[in-house]
């Protein structure tokens, strides 16, 4: 399954990752070599094999539905690039 420029651009957009035209060409080559290596998987018959998500087949633990976190907005916003009055600033999204 060879990858084309349009696949890289689609993935970059889905991942919200800016990629220049030059870079995109390089990534098409790199990703094709990686996928060519990955395509060895297709030669293996996995009919009836259950996918493995957790190496010990453990399931997610449930806990009581109780509030366990306290508000630490100020602490967390110390690392934010732009905040004002406790809010995160982003470019206008609604005109």
């Amino acid at each position: 399954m060879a990858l084309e420029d349009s696949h890289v651009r689609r993935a970059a957009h889905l991942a919200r990752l800016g990629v220049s035209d030059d870079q995109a060409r390089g990534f098409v080559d790199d990703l094709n070599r990686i996928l060519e290596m990955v395509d060895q998987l297709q030669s293996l018959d996995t009919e009836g094999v259950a996918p493995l998500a957790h190496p010990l087949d453990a399931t997610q633990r449930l806990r009581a539905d109780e509030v366990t976190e306290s508000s630490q907005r100020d602490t967390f916003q110390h690392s934010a690039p732009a905040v004002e009055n406790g809010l995160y600033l982003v470019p206008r999204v609604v005109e």
Partner: protein
Amino acid sequence: MHDKTVTQLAAALADGELTSRELTSHYLQRIERLDSKLNSFITVTADQALKAADAADQARAKGNAGLLTGIPLALKDIFCTKGVKTSCGSKMLDTFIAPYNATVVEKLNAAGTVSLGKTNMDEFAMGSSNESSFYGPVKNPWDLSAVPGGSSGGSAAAVAAGLVPAAMGTDTGGSIRQPAAFCGITGLKPTYGRVSRYGIIAYASSLDQAGPMARTAEDCAHLLNHIAGHDLRDSTSLARGVPDYLDTLDAPLSGLKIGLPKEYFGDGLDPEVAAAVREAVRVYESLGATVREVSLPHTHYAIPAYYVIAPAEASSNLSRYDGVRFGHRCENPLDLTDLYKRSREEGFGDEVKRRILIGTHTLSEGFFDAYYKKAQQVRRLIRQDFLDAFEDVDVLMGPASPSPAFDLGAKKDPVSMYLQDIYTISVNLAGIPGISVPAGFVGNRPVGLQILGTHFAEAQLLNVAHKFQQATDWHRQRPAFAKENA
């Protein structure tokens, strides 16, 4: 002083031969004097370290010292440390000051250890050479023209050079064991879920695991005793008792059944590495172990499966870096989409971008079943290979890496870099523990013997590694760099 193991330093502290302040100052001076040649630290927290050392000395004076109280350590810069920059080797997090501690950090603090700082690493732990770090490559203390391995390359180089007696690393596809092998130290990747991942910046969540890197298996046992265990804050950590890993270190090996996977000794393995590993196996035979060949038939599918599963998980985990809540943000964004795209374009390096793109592509509509589902099915077959082998043998042995440390800049093609992890990567897919111990040299570059056990066999691996270190002195060799700069 810096030639000693954690075990020896702990005894010296307990006997009052030296204080934690003296020890901590000594290592901090070595870092200041020598690390410009290695680049193994991203951040050195000297002031905090000296304060912690004083607190450790006071605790000891009051009779409140534990085994590791006052021992200096370093943390891979993937562990969140409250109030300290936690970059994960990325420009994206160059200004990120972690607001909380990882569980591993909390536990090490509670044990009274003293963190000297945060070690260099491949960006977001994606790499096998430490060359993808935003902060520049780390040099191997055994040969400054060689890589230290990766992704925990800074931790491995710092321990090997005697800049710190032990360090914490993480291992998603070999990132503890391969740099430990390249730098001639001992590194343990525990069973998946044995050590909490809370506060460890996520790369591939179903594979990531933290573990100790030190000079000896005994030191690793000391550290694992303190960091292992269930954590309510990590839903994938396992609720299972933790043994005292020191208790069984000296158990005799007579009757130990060793399996040598034939796939780990095939094409692509450096013959001198193979010879060193076979010599190590002969040492085990002299200790009473029996050896037989076994097969892990799906070994060659491990790298292909990993390069679907890990990038898929990474593409999801790394979606949190949006330029809004933390991390790098581009200048003058035109709109929200431009903010996301340019912040991520500027903040991530090429290898991270490759993996985000691969992961996004393989998870996208029309490709998911052929890639992600298929890789997860193959993952089960790979795990079953190991479970079948452990029906017949107690441990598996082989090389940690197909070659000793390669030259800086030698692997320009991503796929050739990925193939370096052929012997380590399937271990993460299976979730089993593995340890690398020094077992010889090719020229001046160390060789690592990898020992694998079944799930939760850490005590056995540490025992098997420790007995080897009682019988050999590979782990006592020091690079010329450390000797010249004594």
